[in-house]
């Protein structure tokens, strides 16, 4: 019966996107719209002594200038929505415009609304702000030290949260034959979706309704938060995300500027549009990663892993972003044992305030950080005991017969065949030949390396009871409504909010197959709180896992209702009716049948419905996952390191991922490619740098290296398929696997290339300069 699922159906999103008819937030044009610009702090930490807006206000074309003082008492502060349990989290208020103190470069100070965007920009220059600068601190460990500048009176020592999890590791570590220790720096990254954030708001006074077009991954979460902050009842507030140009986590958070635009539209009774420029994105959109980790791994001399303990210092930035506190804790600390059998493990996390842009989810969110350390540690362990990293992996990877596996933190890994993925990846490289060639090249002063990443990650978080237990201030179920129109055409309303992942296509594949109707008869509606029932959006690779399961469940309900009507039409009992390829017929009888369309029209005419069946054909489902899902796989990177320049080139890249059944191989491959390149971006190129005063030195595409086409070889992908028992369609999620797996694969490969130099570890990004210096230093010492 399955016809479309599993095939590379071309994307229906593309028709509008390739012809210039995408509808991104900045494309929204409303009659009489005004334009907002935000004046941002040039200082990392300063007291605002005065703000003089007179000159700006007097400019022709300027509608209004707002400061924090103007808004105090009118607009609430922006809260965090993730409060990890027993973490002593400090809820510090984030004012939508700073009132007394600015705490990072980019903190909003004033907003101009003008008739023209260029005038709004000009007016920013006429606002005079007198600052008294304060000492700033940007590094989380320095921020915790005695005498460091303090950001918030309520957070002594700048500690935003302190969270521990796991079991007692002391005995295992005391008795272990081998303990490997390493400190890691996982640098700060800047998400940089190609579409900057934007908001356009319109208030209709006649109906007292506010509509906000927004670059968001989760319109309903935004509506809930905006409603609370602005004091606008939820049923008078509509959030619309039509086309969103990538998010990667950075469009989850509710931001002060979005609140401001919505506020101004109502205040001025005029549409207001704001679009950040890239410079603003760098400073005012949440960043990702930025951890220090001190890691210890215990094992036996013959290669059995026995335990891991991790102490992590996460930079939260100046305030706690919407999902920020959950990322370095729940999404990281619970899975630091990776794909390996490990009797004991513990994580201790400090979340620390610094004078930097707040951090939040960035593709993978916590799991890349966890995967990076365990995959690096396994290599270091192998090196220490003199074994091949591949052998250590083979020995310690969970076997297929060990699932479900409860890890030391209590996570129940659903299903897996980690060895099969590894074996498949090894068919795509010639490992023994590579080792031979490596040795031969090394003799000629050329350095190549190979790196493995045998990862597991967790997606599709839920059930909501668990969301509550881990402090997420929301549910993690997803909604779906399947509405069959009288003519048999179907509209599906999903609370997920795809923004590049292609679910308008993949959801349609699911529905068309399940109903046995052509894909063109199915339409997917998302991203509009007025059309779609409450849902939780798209992040954490949950869209197909949870959103897809919701849709599938709702379609089942539609079919069940239709079956009763069909049975009535066919004059048999519902249990005797089968539904195949869009047709209902009595079991074993093919010449008496009712098509889906015939049943549908009867459902609407309602002239002769069976007793107890209501008219119409529509069903909803609110699917709450039974558990997380755990995609896994093996990535292998081969690199060369130029001995003269330190430049690393990825020469071959192989990815075998298991995300359960593949709904659309073309789209899944695209997700994997994109993720891998983003992860290699962290390994080799990207990194946000603040100077000692808290200025973001890497504040544009000129200073922050984005991965470009010429950096990469062709990426080779393959899949194994191990369905997850944790959801009805068996899928595990694929949006983040590439990013999670690729970073350690490449760093392991570079360290392998440099192994002859006796360099144990280099922190990312492995830029030519860093690699060259490290090689140079070793040579100088020799």
């Amino acid at each position, binding site marked *: 019966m399955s016809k479309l699922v599993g095939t590379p159906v*071309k*994307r229906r*999103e*593309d*028709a*509008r*996107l*390739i*012809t*210039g*008819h*995408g509808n*991104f937030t*900045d*494309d929204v*044009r409303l009659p009489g719209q005004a334009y907002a610009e935000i004046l941002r702090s040039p200082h990392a930490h300063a007291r605002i002594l005065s703000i003089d807006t007179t000159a700006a206000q007097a400019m*022709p*074309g300027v509608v209004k200038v707002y400061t924090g003082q103007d808004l105090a008492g009118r607009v609430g502060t922006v809260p965090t929505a993730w409060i990890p349990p027993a973490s002593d989290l400090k809820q510090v208020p984030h004012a939508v415009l700073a009132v007394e103190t600015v705490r990072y470069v980019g903190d909003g100070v004033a907003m101009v609304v003008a008739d023209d*965007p*260029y*005038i709004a920009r000009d007016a920013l220059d006429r606002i005079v702000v007198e600052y008294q600068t304060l000492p700033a601190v940007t590094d989380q460990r320095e921020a915790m030290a005695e005498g460091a500048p303090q950001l918030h009176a309520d957070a002594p020592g700048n500690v935003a949260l302190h969270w521990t999890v796991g079991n007692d590791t002391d005995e295992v570590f005391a008795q272990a034959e081998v303990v490997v220790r390493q400190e890691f720096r996982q640098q700060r990254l800047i998400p*940089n*979706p*190609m*579409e*900057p954030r934007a908001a356009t708001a319109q208030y209709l006074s006649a109906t007292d309704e506010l509509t906000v077009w927004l670059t968001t991954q989760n319109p309903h979460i935004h509506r809930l938060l905006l409603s609370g902050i602005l004091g606008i009842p939820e049923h008078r507030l509509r959030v619309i995300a039509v*086309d*969103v*140009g*990538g998010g*990667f986590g950075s469009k989850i958070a509710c931001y002060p500027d979005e609140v401001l635009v919505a506020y101004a539209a109502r205040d001025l009774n005029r549409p207001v549009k704001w679009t950040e*420029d*890239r410079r603003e994105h760098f400073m005012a959109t949440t960043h990702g990663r930025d951890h220090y980790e001190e890691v210890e791994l215990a094992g036996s001399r013959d290669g059995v892993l026995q335990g891991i303990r991790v102490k992590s210092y996460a930079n939260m930035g100046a305030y706690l972003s919407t999902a920020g506190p959950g990322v370095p804790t729940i999404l990281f600390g619970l899975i630091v044992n990776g794909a390996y059998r490990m009797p004991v493990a513990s994580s201790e996390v400090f979340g620390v305030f610094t004078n930097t842009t707040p951090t939040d989810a960035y593709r993978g969110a916590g799991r890349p950080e966890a995967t990076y350390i365990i995959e690096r540690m396994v290599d270091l362990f192998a090196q220490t005991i003199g074994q091949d990293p591949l052998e250590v992996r083979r020995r310690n990877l969970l076997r297929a017969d060990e699932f479900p596996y409860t890890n030391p933190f209590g996570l129940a890994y659903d299903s897996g065949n980690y060895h099969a993925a590894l074996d498949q990846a090894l068919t795509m490289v010639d490992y023994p030949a590579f080792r031979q060639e490596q040795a031969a090249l090394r003799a000629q002063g050329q350095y190549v390396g190979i790196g493995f990443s045998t990862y597991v990650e967790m997606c599709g978080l839920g059930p909501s009871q668990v969301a509550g237990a881990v402090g997420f201030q929301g549910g993690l179920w997803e909604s779906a409504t399947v509405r069959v129109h009288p003519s048999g055409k179907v509209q599906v309303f999903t609370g997920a909010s795809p*923004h*590049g*992942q*292609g679910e308008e296509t993949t959801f349609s594949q699911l529905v068309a197959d399940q109903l046995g109707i052509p894909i063109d008869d199915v339409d997917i509606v998302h991203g509009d709180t007025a059309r779609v029932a409450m849902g939780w959006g798209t992040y954490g690779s949950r869209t197909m896992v949870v959103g897809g399961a919701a849709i599938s469940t709702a379609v089942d309900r539609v079919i069940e209702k239709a079956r009763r009507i069909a049975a009535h039409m066919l004059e048999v009992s519902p249990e005797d009716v089968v539904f195949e390829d869009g047709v209902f017929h009595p079991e074993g009888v093919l010449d008496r049948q009712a098509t889906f369309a015939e049943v549908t029209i009867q459902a609407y005419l309602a002239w002769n419905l069976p007793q107890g069946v209501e008219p119409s054909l529509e069903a909803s489902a609110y699917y709450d996952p039974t558990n997380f899902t755990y995609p896994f796989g093996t990535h292998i990177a081969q690199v060369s390191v130029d001995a003269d320049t330190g430049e690393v080139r990825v020469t071959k890249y192989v990815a075998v991922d298991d995300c359960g059944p593949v709904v659309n191989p*073309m*789209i899944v*491959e*695209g*997700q*994997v*490619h*994109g*993720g*891998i*390149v*983003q992860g290699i971006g962290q390994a080799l190129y990207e990194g946000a740098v603040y100077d000692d005063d808290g200025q973001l030195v890497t504040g*544009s*595409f*000129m200073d922050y290296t*984005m*991965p*470009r*086409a*010429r950096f*990469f070889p*062709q990426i080779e992908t393959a899949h194994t398929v191990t369905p997850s028992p944790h959801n009805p369609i068996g899928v595990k999620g694929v949006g983040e696997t*590439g990013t999670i797996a690729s970073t350690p694969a490449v760093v392991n490969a570079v360290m392998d290339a440099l192994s002859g130099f006796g360099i144990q570890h280099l922190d990312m990004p492995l830029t030519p300069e860093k690699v060259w210096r490290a090689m140079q230093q070793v040579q100088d010492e020799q």
Partner: protein
Amino acid sequence: MNNQDTVQVTMTVNGRTRVEQVEPRLLLAHFLRDHLGLTGTHIGCDTSQCGACTVLLDGQAVKSCTVLAVQADHQAVTTVEGLGQRGGLHPVQQAFWDKHGLQCGFCTPGVMMTAVGLLQQNPTPTSEEIREGLDGVICRCTGYETIVRAVAEAAAVMAGEAGPSAAAANE
């Protein structure tokens, strides 16, 4: 808009003559988006690095965020809207669709215009040459692999070597 400081520009945009009063400092990208409502041309940066804004100016691919509208006076501009529409897609558009050369689609108009420019200069590029030729664009979603495939496919189609699948896919 302050009228006293505006100048008149005349441009042929997607085959249609447009006469507008603009500020001399107005960027071509903003002119296309805000004055003409051609929102297919996107703006992804402010340092001329991402290529999302790429259009054809008298047939040459240029980043419209680095050109003033007045500099394009009396020239012909082609934006993604003018490249092709459904029923008459340009081979580059068709190839991006067929080969999954886009995800969020934000970079896509600029990447496709860059590809058109690239194929004008080198109708038969190798995949390395395609990767080099795309150096002026940033795509955060695709990892570039499918973009490279799409450009190669478009080159093949434009060179008349279209396999039946490519030709048949034209909708």
